[in-house]
Each structure stands twice: as C-alpha cells, then as structure tokens.
C-alpha cells in the first residue's frame, strides 16, 4: 500500500489523528486489510501548526515484509522526515450501524454543540440527549441515587431552529460519553464542515459525521441501553477478568473487548453503507457488546457505559478507488532520517 497526502490535507490528517487520540490509544488503518498502529503515529503529526508551515506532502507506505509502516514527510528546503512505525495485524472489525435508517437526523455547525458541552464541568463523564419535535435537551447523566443528592445537574435546551436540519420521527433519549464527544467536536469544528448527528433508540449507537468531497468521517458512539436491570440476567461473560484472546494482541484493552464480542451477531455491513474504502476498523453492535459487558461489570460500577475503547472511526475517501493510484510508480527513495524523534522541527 502506498498513498500520498498533499498540501493542506496533511493538516486535516494530522487533526484527525489528534482527535482520534483523545478517544483511544490504538489506531486501525485499513487500506485493504487491517493494521494496528500504536500511539506513535501521533508523534509523526505532533504539531499541527508546524506541519502546516513546513510539510508539502506526506507519503505513507506499507512494507509487509518488514511489518513496517513508513510515513515520509516532504518538507520545505528539500528536508525529508521519515518515521518508521511497526504495526500489528489485526482482524478486521466492522461496526454494525445504518445511520440512514435512524429515526432522527440533525445537522448543525459543530460550534452549536461545542457551545453546549462547555457548560458541563470536565468531571462529567456521560451526557443524556433527549429529543422532541422542536427541541433537543442535553444534560449530564448521574449514575446512582447517592450521587444524585450531591451532584450538580446541568441541562441545556436547544431549539430546532438553531439547527440547519432537525428531523425527529421518534422521541428518544440516549446516553453516551462526553469525553469522546468533546474530542470529535474539536476535529469537526476545525474542518469547518457541518456536523450531522444520527440518533436512534437507546442502545443503538449515535453517529456523528462530517462529509465533504474528499473526506468522510463517522464517529460512532455507544449508548446506554434502556434496560438497567439486565445485569440480573444470567451471563455470557461471567468474569470481570476476560480470558486472553486467541490472537496475539499485546494490548489488554483490545483483548477485553474482543473477547466480549458476541460472534453470533455480526452481519456484514448493510447495503446502505457507501462503498468507500474505510481507513479504520470497527467492532460489532455496541448494544450487544454493551449487554455482555454489563454482566461482567455488575460487581463494579453498575450502569457504566462499555469500555471507552469501543469506538470506531471511519475515515474514507469518497473517490472511487482508482486502479491507477495503486499502481503509481513510487520513486525509490533512500531513507534519510533516522528513527529517533527530534523534538524541534526545523523550519
């Protein structure tokens, strides 16, 4: 695999990576098959401001023989910075969602939601979004009764005419993590694009997307399912400690959620999904996973949302994959820069 990112798009890629890093520690790269690249990719795109000024293009190349993913930044004055990152093969995971079938669709400038979440203290972990025909309420979610008498409850009400598009078919109320929302809003705001929000029943993931001619980003966040009494039922994953997975993943977090996957559920992506080449991997239905996870966590904190690692981000090019691009001759280049990361960027 090889691809070239030029000019201003390098900044977009960098911002996307920064945004993703606020959500999870692992980055799944999916050109034709899945890879797993650890957080060092963020250091490649460390300073967005500097990148903007100095980088002319970014060349990404996969060397399967050496298990290496190479980022080469072509900078001004003929400077080449090469970063060699190791990766691990991983299974391709697909999030099952069909945002076009969702009951409720909203579209607004990300600023609207940014101005909304600013009212919640940083300690707030989850928010509940409730919609009616003309209004959207956002309030912080409080776990248990004891906390309720101590915690401050904050609620913001947005009118439908603050949105560019506000279509409600079903009055739902969903709860999901605020931290991830803040991360994706920062990215969405920086793109200058409108943010679309697809909201369905509790348990179904909420999908937030930004789209333009060269970029499509879907942020899929798990939501609390309605049934808080589920933990009383008997369980599929009995222990809080998940047994190690069959594959050789090194990261515990991936282990735990992969094992929690219910393999009986996992239909392929629906036909409604656009035929994009997605760059990131995902996982199965959040609601299924959430249910399984809750059994194992009933000893712990009650109604917690699933492990926050379970987010999938899709970034894809909306251009049809061109046979030419994949066969473009790559100029042979010597690797000029070493692996060591230099803090100061040469200008």
């Amino acid at each position, binding site marked *: 695999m090889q691809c070239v990112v030029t000019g201003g798009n390098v900044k977009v890629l960098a911002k996307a990576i920064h945004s993703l890093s606020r959500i999870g520690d692992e980055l799944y790269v999916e050109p034709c098959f899945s890879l797993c690249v650890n957080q060092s990719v963020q250091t490649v795109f460390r300073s967005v401001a500097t990148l903007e000024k100095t980088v002319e293009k970014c060349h990404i190349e996969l060397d399967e023989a050496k298990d290496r993913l190479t980022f080469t930044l072509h900078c001004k004055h003929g400077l080449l910075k090469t970063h060699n990152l190791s990766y691990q093969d991983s299974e391709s995971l697909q999030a099952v969602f069909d945002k076009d079938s969702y009951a409720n669709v909203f579209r607004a400038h990300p600023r609207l939601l940014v101005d909304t979440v600013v009212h919640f203290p940083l300690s707030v972990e989850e928010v509940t979004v409730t919609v009616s025909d003309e209004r959207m309420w956002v309030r912080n979610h409080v776990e248990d009764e004891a906390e309720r*008498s101590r915690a*401050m409850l*904050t609620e*913001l009400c947005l009118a439908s005419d*603050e949105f560019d598009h506000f279509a409600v078919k079903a009055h739902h109320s969903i709860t999901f993590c605020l931290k991830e929302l803040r991360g994706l809003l920062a990215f969405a705001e920086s793109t200058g694009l409108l943010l679309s929000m697809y909201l369905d029943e509790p348990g179904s993931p909420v999908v937030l997307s930004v789209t333009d001619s060269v970029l499509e980003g879907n942020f899929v966040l798990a939501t609390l399912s309605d049934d808080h009494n589920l933990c009383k039922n008997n369980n599929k994953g009995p222990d809080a400690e998940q047994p190690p997975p069959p594959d050789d993943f090194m990261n515990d977090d991936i282990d735990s959620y992969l094992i929690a996957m219910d393999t009986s559920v996992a239909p392929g992506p629906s036909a409604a999904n656009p035929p994009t080449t997605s760059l990131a991997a995902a996982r199965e239905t959040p609601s299924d996973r959430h249910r399984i996870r809750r059994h194992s966590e009933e000893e712990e904190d009650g109604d917690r949302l699933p492990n926050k690692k379970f987010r999938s981000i899709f970034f894809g090019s909306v251009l049809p994959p061109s046979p030419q691009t994949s066969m473009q001759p790559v100029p042979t280049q010597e690797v000029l820069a070493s692996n060591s990361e230099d803090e100061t960027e040469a200008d």
Partner: protein
Amino acid sequence: MKFRGKIIDVACLNHFSRVITTISKLTKTCVMRLTPDNLFFVLSGKVTNGGVSMWCELHQANFFDEFQMEGVSSEFNEICLEVTPENLSRALKTVQNAKSVKVKLTKKHCPCLTVAAELPSLSSNSRVVTHDVPVEVVPRSLWHEFKEPSMPDFDVSIYLPPLKTMKNVVDRMKNLSNFLVMEANLSGEMNLKIETDLVSVTTHFKDLGNPSWGDAASQDGGASQSRDPEAMAEVRVDIRKLQQFLVGQQVNPSKAMCNIVHQSVVHLILLHDDVSLQYFIPAVA
C-alpha cells in the same frame, strides 16, 4: 420558603461570580444566609476546619436587578442553606455572556439552588441552561451557629501589605515550615516569621499604617492607647490556613487589614466596594 434573584448587568454577574469563586477557594462547604437585603456566606469555626471561620457579606442590591425572598416565617424572614460553593462557581463561570441569570430556590429531587441562564442563540428563542445545585436547608435551631462574628478585642490592628506579595512570601515559607508567626505593632510594622531546626526566615514589612477604629479603639479600656507602639502582638498559625486565604483572593480589595489578638487569633478583613470578607485564623500551640 422562596427565593428568586435575577442578574442582568454583565458586570454584576462577573463580580458575583468572582465572589463565589473566592469563597469556593476558601472552603468546600459553607452556609448561605439570605435576608431581604443581604447575602451572607458563613463558615463557623469548628474543629473539622481547623477552627477557621469566615463571614462574607454582600448587599444584594449591588448585584441583583430583581430579588425576592420569603423566609421560614414572617418573624424569622431568612433562609439558611448549606451549599458547596464550587458547584455554584462552576455554574456561573460558563454563563458570563448570558442575557440574564436567575438564581432560585427550587425543589427537585432535593432542595436545590437553580441557576438558570438565558444565553444568546442563533434562533428566535434564547438558549436556556439550568444548573441544579443541591443544597441542604439549615434548621432554625442551628441558626445561632451562623451569626455575625463580633469584633475581637484586638491588641494590634494594621493594614496588610499587598496580598500578592504576601502570597509569594507565604508560598515559599510553606516549603520550609508548617507554622508561621504573624506579628505586628502599632507603628505600621509587620513580620512574617518561620523557624525550623535548620533555618529561620523573617520577612519584614514597614510603613503599612494602622487603621484607627475611632471611638471603639479609644474607648477600649485604654489598653490599646497605652500600648507601646513598638511592641509586637503575635500569633502562631498553621501556614496552610493563611495560604488558603491568600490563594483565593482574585481581586485587590479597596481595604485589607488584620487584627491580631496576641497568641489567640488573626482576624483578616477585606473590604471591596460591594462585598466584605472576614476570616479568622486561630493560634496553634
């Protein structure tokens, strides 16, 4: 019991928020007393807070454009609530650009102070954000614990040096010792001293000036009149308490002074245009 107050002026809102933020830095919880004319934030000196006590007084008319309250009864036309000022501070911080802010006593899942702000929005309707801050009603039987403190029979009264300078000095001294001696005399001199096995450090302040308390001082049994102006009255205090007081001050007061009762208590008084704050730090052995 009813309470509803509304702030429209942006400067008043800002000022009110800063007062609440200062209180939140001084104590985790305190009692808020509401009367028709005033708001008080009170911390009564208990063992649990190291004997420190606080009295902060605001004239409601200087902050609120509308203010209505009905106390527990017509005889006792007052409301006494235990609050966590940090929650109030957080609620107010994010609504500084509001068109108006209402503070009211409500009953949700428990008694709450609700801060409701009308924010500018893109649509014809305003955006409304509400923060419900849980409070506890203080029963009348306990009201006597939250009375205005009486002025102590002090030995020396002196104006404080600039609070920022004091804070810098105390911050550094805190690294060396847990206790600090504050001493001052009627010649406008104040010293902050620490002493450990290895080192002793003293910072001297001069020409601070001594407030004259007028009749009260001169009638004060002659003790202060005949007092040697050079003689120092001192109190040894827990340095963290003094530091906590200094850390919270965000705005320079119009007047800042300190009354010292020898080996007993330090009484700090800050006066701003609309609000006064008194803080008592007891002596430690």
